[in-house]
């Protein structure tokens, strides 16, 4: 049976300002019990649910499980029907960093909020009679986008490849479901004991998980990555930095510790926007007193390196591996984010140790390999991005994650020899989730599959 996918009152949340770094960001929430739900994440002198409508309350958003404070915010409280949507609603003004916004949205989700679809606040405003009919036509387009999403998830937003990929998985699940349903609804017939291949479920599980992973890739393209160049002082970091930036941005000298603070520049590798940092080199020597400014620079660089998505670790080939290099590389042996580079091969013709990329800033030999490796580390082993099926929204990822969880549960039940009514329940759930992406599967679709594949009827 076709289910009504429209839900018009459950609590939803979304960022109302553009995603990016700014002084402030506003997250909007709306729906039944949304203010009470927010209260459970909010510390302040006054309870939001006890506050007057249209008032602004100062407080702190925190994670009730870990007690971690997330951000100091101002919350504007609105009570139905006097709000934009006509429901209870609130606007959370928080600090405008991407990390902070993401954390708040995440905590809202775990408190029972759903990510609002595009135009969903407007849709609610519309259905709650907050807009008059002359405005309706203008809103209609948004509603259409919304409804298509709910029913067919905007086929136009899904690439043909993605919808084909999801449909294939969905049909595999429908086949399994039909097999179970035949066994259930035709108990006496020759199909009474069909084999349900656990391998098929494993395969579907793998594909779903791979698909969910592509969200990270999509995000990498959208939001970019942080890359730091690290290594001992005078390993040639700034030279490589300038080479990657393609201008003389960092001061280069033969003196150790020329770069005392990190320097930042935006570049692109293989289409991925990258914030590239040149860092102060490590120097632990006790022979010379380090300038206090330099040691502060080193500390800051270390912080940066630990939070970078990718690190080019340079070793001076003319000096060879120093104990510091050994120590660093040994302690990060299994970290795929670190790319060791054997630099200055034009000076010293020794061959690079295993896993190192040979690089000469002079001849630019190795530059291409560095770029290739960087994009492999960031995107995984996807051969050609243009050939990869990718998802590009949080909503798609959530749906695929939910489908994955349902398939995993079905598999677990199958392994545990649970009864078919329960296994069917989980598979049906997986099918319904995928149906939210590419068009729902109705009972008649399942019946069609049953009677096309099996000859039954007494």
């Amino acid at each position: 049976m076709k289910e009504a996918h429209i839900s018009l009152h459950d609590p939803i949340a979304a960022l109302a300002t553009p995603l990016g770094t700014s002084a402030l960001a506003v997250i909007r929430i709306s729906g039944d019990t949304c203010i009470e739900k927010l209260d459970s994440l909010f510390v302040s002198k006054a309870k939001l649910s006890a506050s007057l409508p249209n008032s602004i309350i100062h407080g702190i958003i925190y994670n009730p499980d870990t007690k971690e404070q997330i951000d100091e915010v101002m919350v504007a409280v609105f009570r139905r029907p006097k709000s934009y949507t006509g429901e209870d609603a609130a606007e959370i003004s928080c600090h405008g960093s991407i990390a902070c916004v993401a954390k708040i949205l995440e905590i809202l989700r775990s408190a029972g909020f759903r990510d609002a679809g595009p135009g969903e606040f407007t849709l609610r405003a519309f259905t709650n009679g907050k807009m008059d009919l002359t405005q309706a036509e203008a809103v209609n387009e948004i509603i259409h986008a919304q409804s298509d999403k709910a029913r067919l998830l905007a086929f136009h937003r899904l690439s043909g490849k993605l919808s084909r990929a999801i449909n294939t998985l969905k049909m595999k699940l429908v086949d399994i479901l039909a097999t179970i349903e035949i066994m259930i609804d035709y108990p006496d017939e020759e199909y009474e004991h069909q084999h349900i291949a656990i391998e098929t479920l494993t395969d579907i599980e793998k594909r779903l998980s791979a698909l969910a992973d592509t969200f990270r890739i999509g995000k990498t393209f959208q939001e970019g990555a942080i890359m730091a160049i690290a290594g001992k002082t005078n390993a040639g970091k700034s030279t490589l930095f300038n080479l990657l930036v393609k201008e003389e941005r960092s001061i280069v000298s033969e003196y150790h510790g020329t770069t005392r603070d990190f320097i930042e520049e935006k570049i692109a590798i293989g289409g991925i926007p990258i914030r590239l940092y040149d860092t102060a080199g490590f120097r632990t020597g006790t022979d010379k007193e380090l300038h206090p400014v330099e040691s502060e620079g080193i500390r800051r660089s270390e912080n940066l390196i630990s939070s970078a998505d990718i690190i080019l670790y340079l070793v001076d080939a003319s000096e060879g591996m120093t104990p510091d290099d050994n120590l660093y590389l040994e302690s990060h042996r299994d970290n795929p984010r670190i790319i060791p580079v054997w630099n200055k091969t034009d000076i010293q013709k020794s061959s690079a140790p295993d896993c190192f990329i040979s690089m000469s800033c002079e001849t630019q030999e190795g530059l291409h390999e560095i770029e290739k490796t960087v994009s492999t580390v960031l995107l995984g082993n996807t051969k050609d991005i243009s050939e990869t099926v990718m998802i590009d929204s949080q909503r798609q990822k959530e749906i695929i994650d939910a489908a994955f969880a349902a398939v995993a549960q079905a598999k677990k039940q199958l392994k545990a020899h649970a009864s078919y009514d329960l296994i069917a329940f989980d598979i049906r759930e997986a099918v319904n989730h995928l149906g939210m992406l590419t068009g729902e599967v109705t009972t008649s679709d399942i019946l069609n599959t049953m009677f096309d594949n099996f000859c039954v009827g007494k």
Partner: protein
Amino acid sequence: MDFDAIVIGGGHAGIEAAMALSRLQFRTLFITQSLDAIGRLSCNPAVGGLAKGNLVREIDALGGEMAHLIDKTMIQFRMLNKSKGPAVQAPRAQADKQQYSLLAKHTLESQKHLHLFQDTVTELLTNTTGTAATGVKTERGKKFCAKVVVVTTGTFMEGTIFIGPYSASSGRLGEPAAVGLGTHLRNLGFDVGRLKTGTPARVLRQSIDFNQTEEQAGDIVQLPFSFDYDAIDRPKVSCWITYTTANTHRIIRENISSSPLYSGKITGVGPRYCPSIEDKVMRFPDRERHQIFIEPEGLSTEEMYLNGISSSLPEEVQEQFLRSVPGLENIIITRPGYAVEYDYLNPVQLYPSLESKRLQNLFFAGQTNGTSGYEEAAAQGLMAGINASRKLMKKEPLVLSRTEAYIGVLIDDLVTLGTTEPYRLFTSRAEHRLSLRHDTAEMRLFEKAQDIGLKSKEAITRFQEKKQKIEEITELLQKRKVTRQDSERSQILEKHIGKQLAIVLRDPEITMETIAEIENSIAAVHPTLQKQIELDIKYEGYIKKQDEETQRVQRLERLSIPQEFDYDGIDGMSAESREKLKKILPVSVGQAARISGVRNSDISLIILYLTKKNKKT
């Protein structure tokens, strides 16, 4: 006014409709073409099965008759799907056809306020404005007036049967069709279509070599369908299984052009889930054999029913292919298989109460609405009877939701989606089947029937005692914890020491039998009830998962759309949605949202208009 109500048709739907109306003390006229053909099992000699067994139990919980009839006439009982999960288990019983029919007739005859009459209805009488039904006119020219009319004509409306080149105007072999009424309904403007169904040959028991077949015995323990009985004891006979052969398939293929299904004589659509042997052979050429169940037609007859092999091939071809089946080499056919084509009313012309939209006070139920199956028919008959009585009492109709009963699923599917092939209920049609177990039908529905007035004092007392018992046990299970002494009596409980029994029962390895070993007050409870409580606990987690979804559905279900709602007056609604909504006239936003092809944005528009309107008033 001659009567309060008239029920046309003496099949499973007619019986329930007539019983419900007369039990509620409405003077009811029951007209059928033959009083000797009441409650016939025209096809297979069995009642129940997957989803259908649940229907029978729901009918019983709602005060219907079918469960009593089968409980008193069954000759074999089986609980199906014992290994596939409690939520999809269902009872099925072989019936003694003659006894069943006789008992149905006698039950009707003994019912107060019910008048049986043999005649054929050819026309409906309407009021002068043509907006409401007021009675019926019969073949013999008699007129009867009533405030409500229920039509349950089954396969008889303009029915034609086919056997090879032979065809005749009949509803069942040897019984004349009801000619005139279908045409009359068409003239009144109803959308009437043609469907087809079929039945296999009946054969003589002595002509079967059972040595070449497999025996399929029933369960040792027979359980009643009706919640009124704790136990039953009926004769137990076996069924038998054999298979078609390559030779059977060759004979059918060679003669396929003489099948009216393939020669183009039959235009009506047949059921895909119960295909004729011709269809099985032609559509699945790779199958080496098809199963045939040999089922007794009753205790007082030697006729046997060949389930799974319905056919409308010429009689000599039927004999030829049957004789290619092991065990049937010397078969003697007593009645040939045949196909029947009949008029049905597109059920989207009905409200969820089963009242017609076109003519007030006129209700339709059963195979006439495009369904197949005795149980589907009876369920609709009961609901039509109940709602006709509600109409007479000027009360709101009883509409069951998809989340509370298979009957809700059945009727909602019919009136919302319509049907183009004979509709059969499957458990897979119910989104909430885990909550629709057959054993919980009484808990789900009894009180509704009680409110309507269909339950006797004794039944109410019995139900309340049972309900109280369940509450007591449930409370006990929640309070009582497993002790060390318990684990000494039953080792399996060792890992659960200190836990409440209700939690312990969630362990798939622990059943109520184990609990009964350590808790005497549970051991004293009827095993059926023990099992019911156990399953409620075991499925709790899954049911909760469904609940959120259920609530969402129900919120939309509660938003009702008035029948005079002006779809043309809504700006911006798509033409397709508008057309479908105007045809189906959904009673709620929930129903509107389930109509195929209606856009969700248009649903939002309806909600907007409804809320605007509410604000004004």
